[in-house]
């Protein structure tokens, strides 16, 4: 656990410029508007483990994954992969060996496969791109068959089109495609959110099995805390672009420290307690274009004080992790 992490993210920031067009700004004297989707996120993912990012929609967790993979550029921050700095997206794009080792599984099983391509072509695309299968068609065919088998489909499925498969099966095809590149690291963006519960169980079990078999490292993005608990070795909780708590093992669930985490846990309905009224979280999630000053959570926090309104808390160590909260650091909670 103490050896070098596979992926290290430091001070990641991603801002989107959502200002009005230049002319409107000039005429109406509007200022520039920045959407701070990710506002200074740092964490490490150890090899062979699953690190999860949880939070509600708009908290920036998907953006973090896309920045790591190079689908978005970073406004600020550094990214290290296997000891090597890969911050510059352009150079990363040029470095095929690095690119190959970072892959992604997407949320929407319907939009993540090209509807006009046969499954064979879809799964073979990484094979061809990274020349894993040799040049002969026979080699590629066999490899595609193996990959499909490893995700619970049959080699015969390679001749069919995505629309002939159910949502769960399409996610399996997506996983097969990600595996085709022989990655070390896979970012999974809400991989089961669009699936039925019983299918979700199949896919999650499959992902765990594959992780053991291929020594994969996962970055799991999800809003479902129960799924996250089942899958993760470490968990980071995000709120409006910032990490508020990072804990390892079960600590987040047995000993949540940050007020947002505590409230989030309380809003998850449990099958164990029938008829329990969840304590609803007060207020609405603010807009990331105009976030509250200081600690972003302060308008909804029951432990807010003057310092919370002005000063942003930073992550500081607690048992099995870190928390960014003035109240925790001041010993108030």
């Amino acid at each position, binding site marked *: 656990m103490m050896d070098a992490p596979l992926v290290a993210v430091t001070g990641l920031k991603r801002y989107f410029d959502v200002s009005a067009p230049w002319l409107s700004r000039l005429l109406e004297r509007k200022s520039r508007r920045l959407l701070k989707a990710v506002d200074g996120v740092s964490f490490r993912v150890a090899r062979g483990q699953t690190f999860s990012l949880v939070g*509600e*929609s708009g908290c920036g967790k998907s953006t973090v994954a896309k920045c790591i993979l190079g689908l978005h550029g970073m406004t600020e921050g550094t990214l290290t992969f296997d000891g090597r700095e890969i911050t510059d997206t352009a150079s990363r794009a040029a470095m095929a060996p690095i690119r190959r080792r970072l892959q992604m599984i997407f949320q929407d099983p319907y939009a993540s496969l090209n509807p006009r391509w046969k499954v064979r072509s879809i799964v073979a695309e990484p094979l061809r791109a990274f020349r894993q299968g040799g040049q002969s068609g026979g080699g590629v065919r066999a490899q595609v068959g193996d990959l499909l088998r490893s995700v619970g489909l049959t080699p015969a499925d390679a001749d069919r089109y995505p629309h002939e498969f*159910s*949502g*769960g*099966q399409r996610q399996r095809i997506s996983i097969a495609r990600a595996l085709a590149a022989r990655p070390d690291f896979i970012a999974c963006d809400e991989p089961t959110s669009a699936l*039925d*519960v*019983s*299918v*979700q*169980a*199949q896919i*999650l*079990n499959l992902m*765990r099995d594959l992780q053991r078999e291929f020594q994969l490292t996962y970055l799991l993005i999800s*809003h*479902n*805390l*129960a*799924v996250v*608990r*089942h899958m993760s070795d470490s968990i980071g909780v995000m709120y409006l672009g910032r990490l508020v708590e990072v804990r390892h093992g*079960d600590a987040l*669930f047995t000993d949540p420290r940050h007020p947002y985490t505590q*409230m*989030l*846990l309380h*809003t*998850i*309905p*449990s*099958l*164990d*307690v*029938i*008829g*329990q*009224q*969840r*304590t*609803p*979280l007060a207020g*609405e*999630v603010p807009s990331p274009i105009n976030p509250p000053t200081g600690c972003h959570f302060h308008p909804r926090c029951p432990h807010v004080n003057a310092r919370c309104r002005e000063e942003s808390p930073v992550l500081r160590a607690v048992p099995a992790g870190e928390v960014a909260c003035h109240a925790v650091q001041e010993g108030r909670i």
Partner: protein
Amino acid sequence: MVHQPPLLEIRNLRVEFPTRRGTLVAIDDVSLQIGEGEVLGVVGESGAGKSITGAAVIGLLPEPGRIAGGEIRLNGRRIDGLPEEALRRIRGKEVGAIFQDPLTSLNPLYSIAAQLVETIRTHLDLRPQDARRRALDLLKEVGIPAAEDRMDGYPHEFSGGMRQRIVIALALAAHPKLVIADEPTTALDVSIQAQIIAVLKRLCRDHHASVMLITHDMGVIAEAADRVAVMYAGRLAETGPVADVIRRAQHPYTHGLMGSIPQLTARTDRLVQIEGAMPRLTELPAGCAFHPRCPRAMDRCRADRPPVVSAATGHQVACWLFEDAAAPAERRDG
């Protein structure tokens, strides 16, 4: 369990979709009851037919669907097969509806006050100012902050959670006795879901309305429903009090479903997994629809479709494992 006549009674409902490729049976011999003031959860995965059930009750089956058998009774009166004009009078006044997407449930071109007032005045004979006052009361009831100032705003000025509250207000505006809520929280953030369920429960209790809560989320059912009906491939698998069905699931499908849901409270090594997937309505197997995936399938299951029998008081299941249950099966020709 229900001693007075039920508010809503669905008996042997059959819904078909005639297509060029043959007739699709979306709902096959489903019987349900909702008592006064009761919350019935209808749970199932996509394609199970739960939304279609709700649509059939309120008369909004998508084309070319039609009710091909059975009956739906509201307060003893048949409402299936009524002409459109009669159905329109029922909708809103006796049966309200809440859909999944608050974005499309509200007309973006009209203020929310206008939409509320329109609904109120359609069903209740009130003067415009009285209707407006009633609309304001409803908005306060559902917890819209600064309702008086904001009621003339447009839907896009409100967040998703607020919009869903407005939709709940709309559904209850004319004091319906039954509210059909189809996935009311699915499109919302987790922290907002809890708020909406709380609002829904509170309002329905205060207005003495029953709820048919349609969802795929068992957690919502556990929290909000009194009884639950589990649907699979257009058929009923199991019905009963929520605590019973969750803790002592009788049907192998329900059992598998409960096991496959990851729990917040404990970490397991491997989730229970039901092999395969729910069959498409065009490819339903003979006999019990679940038998290809059932770990306890018998020969009987492959041949004949199991009737609904009683497994315990108020707890019914459609499974051959309970063939020799004590209480008689429900009459199928009702």
